[in-house]
């Protein structure tokens, strides 16, 4: 076995899913006994068989990865309970193994995976998807890229034809359940964690929070970073649509007319909300110049329709 063959062999064995009791499986997918596979390249010692030595790495792989993902999704973990949550993560990681040197992005596709697999969440599927999306938004807002926002002068020069770029760490969410307070409460109890070089010996159960019933209710939310802390900010539907429009590349006028197209507010109230939306967004540093463009837009005037 050359080096590459050995590494391919061992990677397949280390990544093989565990049994329900977190032990190494006895048989590979093709029916071969894993004990035979292990003995083909790992030598035993007087206390441990080849199988048992390989099992240390097989378990460690899963414990480390499950722990890494669960640290990003503590509320989802509490909502589903450990058994269902672990089943979800195992299935997810089996379909989305790590393709990056960092563990940071390991859980990035979990909300989409959960949305496509309702069987892991049962009755509270939509609630679980909302929680997952919000927890992912936290991860992105926490250490996502920060661009220099518009200066006050540039913000004042925003006009109908302006196209803007939204702060990369800002996430906009449309949720069916008001889960912001719930997620915040769980997050507060969670310690921040590092990547380390020590062994992963067990499945850490750090979260025993009980999730109270949550009533359905639409919520538009901005998740963003301000002064190095992550905040959730509830938005009016129109503000949410306006920002979404800008994010998709629409001009200010186009985004505004789309945002207020179905608004039930009076024209005066619409004008006020539009003005406030821009004022808050620029105060919070959400509006940035389009990359590669001249930030100054002196030829345009802010028009409120």
């Amino acid at each position, binding site marked *: 076995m050359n080096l590459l063959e050995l590494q391919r062999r061992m990677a397949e064995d280390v990544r093989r899913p565990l049994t329900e009791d977190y032990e190494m499986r006895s048989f590979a997918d093709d029916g071969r006994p894993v004990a035979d596979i292990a003995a083909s390249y*790992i030598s035993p*010692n007087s206390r441990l068989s080849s199988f048992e*030595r390989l099992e240390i*790495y097989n378990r460690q792989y899963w414990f480390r990865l499950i722990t890494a993902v669960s640290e990003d999704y503590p509320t989802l973990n509490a909502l589903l309970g450990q058994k269902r949550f672990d089943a979800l993560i195992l299935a997810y990681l089996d379909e989305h193994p790590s393709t990056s*040197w*960092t563990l940071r992005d390991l859980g990035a596709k979990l909300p989409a995976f959960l949305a496509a697999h309702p069987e892991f969440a049962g009755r509270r599927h939509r609630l679980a998807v909302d929680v997952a999306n919000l927890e992912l938004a936290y991860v992105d807002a926490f250490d996502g890229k920060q661009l220099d926002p518009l200066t006050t002068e540039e913000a004042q020069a925003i006009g109908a034809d302006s196209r803007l770029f939204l702060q990369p*760490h800002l996430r906009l969410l449309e949720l069916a359940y008001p889960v912001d307070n719930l997620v915040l409460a769980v997050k507060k109890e969670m*310690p921040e964690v590092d990547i380390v*070089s020590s062994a992963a010996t067990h499945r850490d159960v750090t979260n025993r929070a009980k999730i109270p019933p949550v009533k359905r209710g639409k919520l538009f939310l901005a998740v963003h970073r301000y002064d190095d*802390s992550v905040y959730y900010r509830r938005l009016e539907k129109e503000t949410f649509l306006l920002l979404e429009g800008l994010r998709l590349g629409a001009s200010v006028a186009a985004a505004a007319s789309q945002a207020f197209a179905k608004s039930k507010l009076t024209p005066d109230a619409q004008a006020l909300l539009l003005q406030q939306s821009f004022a808050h967004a620029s105060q919070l540093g959400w509006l940035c110049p389009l990359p590669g463009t001249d930030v100054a837009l002196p030829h345009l005037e802010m028009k409120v329709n």
Partner: protein
Amino acid sequence: MPANRFNGYTDYEVGIGLRVPHYDHILSKKPIVDWFEIISENYMVDGGRPLKILDQILDQYRVVQHGVSMYFGSAQPLNRDHLKRIKELTKRTKTPWLSDHLCWGSVDGRYTHDLLPLPYTFEAVRTTAERIRMVQDFLEIPLAVENVSSYAAYNDSEMTEWEFLNEVVHAADCGILLDVNNIYVSSQNHDFDPMDYVNSIPAERVAQIHIAGHSKFEKYILDTHDHPVLDPVWKLYGRAIERSGPTATLLEWDDNIPSFDEVHAEALKAHRFLRAAETAMSVGAGLREEAHV
């Protein structure tokens, strides 16, 4: 020694690992710490609090980068994007040397996020040394490779672990981050005398030493970094220092992390050995001078 070309000719003493639970204490109390070791990957992010904290630490302390995902021993080409990001961070930290593990961990673009042991073969020596040289050339910083603890041995191995380490560092012309706790853990798991290992290390290549605690299970020992350093590990440390001279030393404590003061006090126990080595060296130097006269 201890300043040598593998640690950028520095004279660092006892450092501790920078960990999240200690941020507030360090920034508010500003304890005297000779240097901090950071896990590079925790700060290879695009923005936010981790980098802000790092910059505050860098304002007041010396920092050395230690990585967990270089996988010098993986058989396939290096990840350029990863290397570029590490280089970016080295410019921020101005780390005088950089360390990562003598192990593998990825294949065909899939990552295990584990420090998997290499088979001790001549092919693995060639592959690993070539990759270390490439990284060293790219980063333009001295590299030190760390021996990992292991729980499995391969049928294909053609030499002992310490012979393998020797072969690799000579072929790559790089330094060693000698982890004496890992030597102890592996000696128990593979039934060898850890002193044989320490005594075979090319002392002039040791850039840094790791000390740590471990956990004993019924049939094997795991490298858990969640305890104080145990006596047999201190003994190996003493011997390593005796051979290499006083060397930059770092205590790893990654799980069940106690207060900053407790971790620091544990790390500072290393001073006893460092002072003894210094005395031995100055006595030795004195003798040499006399002999010269």
